[in-house]
């Protein structure tokens, strides 16, 4: 009991999320026991992959403060997928696909980073602008139609699984989160990110290369969106120009739900990971229990507000 109280004080968000998740699973076990099978579990991880990668990038950008936010993530995913497939169709060797995805995504993220740090624009505005541009160009280039022709070897990866764990989740999502966690908690880069997020002025005063770190984080966020585009290609088998639609709002929801403070400097990627899994499980559970899908957006919205309220309450006590 005291352990629980201590956890409530230290990691309230994570605890709430874990309890909610256990509650959800128990609800499924009670009402729809037959669907608690391997397919459901694999499905949850598969559907979590794209959102997890994008949310990780979003969280890193927010964590570093400076009113950091990236509204262009969805547009980035769509445009990266489209450009990559256009390059393959134009005759580029299919082996370049993964590298190209990362490079294009990183390039689009770098653009955001330069506009934010070098020209000093507010991230919300810059990425709102690039959101319109990236998603618009993806649609306009294709006229809206999907581009097929994804190499079959990538489908084996994108749709395959190792035991119950989907390969994209095992080979991209897990390593990305583990690396992010290590960097944030064990390296000086991590301390820099928290420091500049917590108080940028003093971070600059103690000599942290704030702008350089920030550019790198936007680029990294872009590269993660690029990886999400890769997952979408290898999984769906075609490049859809609106594949990233709504990802900006969903990734923001996941980051906030996961306990990343919107002003930066506080939060951890484990929380984000838990939040992504919770969101996807919630959708699955509601589908399985026959709730109308229109309730999903509302329940997620309500959940976001309630978790933040709970977070507030715990801070008051601490």
């Amino acid at each position, binding site marked *: 009991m005291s352990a629980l109280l201590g*956890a409530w004080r230290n990691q309230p968000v994570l605890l709430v999320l874990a309890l909610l998740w*256990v509650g959800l699973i128990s609800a499924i076990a009670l009402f729809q026991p*037959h669907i*608690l*099978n391997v397919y*459901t579990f694999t499905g949850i991880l598969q*559907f979590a992959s794209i959102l997890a990668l994008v949310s990780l990038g979003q969280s890193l950008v927010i964590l570093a403060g400076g009113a950091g936010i990236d509204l262009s993530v969805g547009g980035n995913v769509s445009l990266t997928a489209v450009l990559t497939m256009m390059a393959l169709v134009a005759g580029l060797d299919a082996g370049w696909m993964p590298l190209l995805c990362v490079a294009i995504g990183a390039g689009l993220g770098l653009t955001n980073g330069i506009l934010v740090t070098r020209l000093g624009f507010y991230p919300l505005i810059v990425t709102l602008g690039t959101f319109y541009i990236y998603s618009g160009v993806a649609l306009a280039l294709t006229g809206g139609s999907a581009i097929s022709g994804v190499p079959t070897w990538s489908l084996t990866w994108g749709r395959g699984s190792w035991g119950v764990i989907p390969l994209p989740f095992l080979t991209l999502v897990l390593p990305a989160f583990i690396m992010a966690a290590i960097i944030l908690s064990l390296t000086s880069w991590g301390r820099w990110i928290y420091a500049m997020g917590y108080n940028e002025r003093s971070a600059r005063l103690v000599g942290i290369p704030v702008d350089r770190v920030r550019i790198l984080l936007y680029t990294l966020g872009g590269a993660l969106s690029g990886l999400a585009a890769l997952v979408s290609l290898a999984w769906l088998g075609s490049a*859809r120009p609106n594949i990233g639609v709504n990802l900006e709002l969903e990734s923001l929801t996941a980051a906030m739900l996961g306990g990343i403070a919107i002003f930066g400097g506080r939060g951890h990627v484990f929380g984000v990971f838990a939040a992504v899994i919770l969101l996807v499980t919630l959708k699955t559970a509601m589908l399985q229990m*026959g709730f109308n899908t229109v309730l999903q957006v509302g329940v997620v919205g309500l959940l976001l507000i309630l978790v933040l309220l709970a977070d507030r309450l715990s801070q008051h006590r601490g």
Partner: protein
Amino acid sequence: MLKYLKILTSASAVAMLSAGAFAQDTPRVAFVPQIVGIPYFNAMEQGGKDAAEEFGVEFIYTGPVDTNPIDQLQIVQNLIAQGVEAIAVSVLDASSIAPVVEQARAQDIHLYTSDSDAPDSGRAVYVAQATDEGLGYTIIDELVARVGEDAKIGIVSGEATASNLNAWIGFMQERVAERYPNVTLLEPQFAGGTAQRAAQIATDMMASNPDLKGIIAVASTTCPGVGQAIETANRIGEVVGTGYCSPNTARSYIKSGAFGFSVLWDPAKLGYLTVWAGKQLIDGNEFQAENEVTGFDEPIAYDEATGVLLLGAPAVFTAENVDDFDF
């Protein structure tokens, strides 16, 4: 930290262990629309319910809130996980089902398309409202008959990513190129999902082409926008609006003269036929070239080469007959 991870893993272990197939008495047929909350798919749902009662199956209707293929895919996957015996999908595009076709086959689940098709995806059958060709040709023929063979015609569609709408537009362009060389068909414009944008685009289209004679609203969300734009611009009689809209949506515009006509099939019948087809798949009955279906006066044609079950020719609604329909 570790403690919570432990909780999480043990809960997932429970999840693994309680796996197992679950047999149900009444077979279930599901239909997944492209989007929920629009009258067209609600009508299909109603037809599906009627058929379910008629043929003794359980009917499940569930779909995404946004036209997002990943959300649709997640819904299909969950239906497969529930072991629903037959699942019909009005696909946003092939990616809505491609990743799960194999899984469905492995679980002996009949995955098929209805209303919007994904050819070559491995689906069991496609329940078609009409051929894409028939839809594209009919609307052009009917419109040209009203506005003349040298008219200028504009197209307002919804999401540029909807593959079925794009197919219809393709056949409109083909028909004009082949049969009406003097008709000018403007490039299609895309309004996304909102009626407001459709109205804006239709208004701008009329402004930039004062000699415009007809506007085709391709997506059902664009119908009210186009009709409203013609009324607001006071161009009733000069510009003939039309589209693939249900009589209920088009009625006030047909009455006011903003729409000359509207082309659609009866979505309730399509929903009905979809559930019937699901029942046939579950029972293992082969489709014949001509199928007698309870509730239909005419036999339903099946094309074995393409695997298409055809509801029939599209209906044209005009001021004379629009009040005879309620959907």
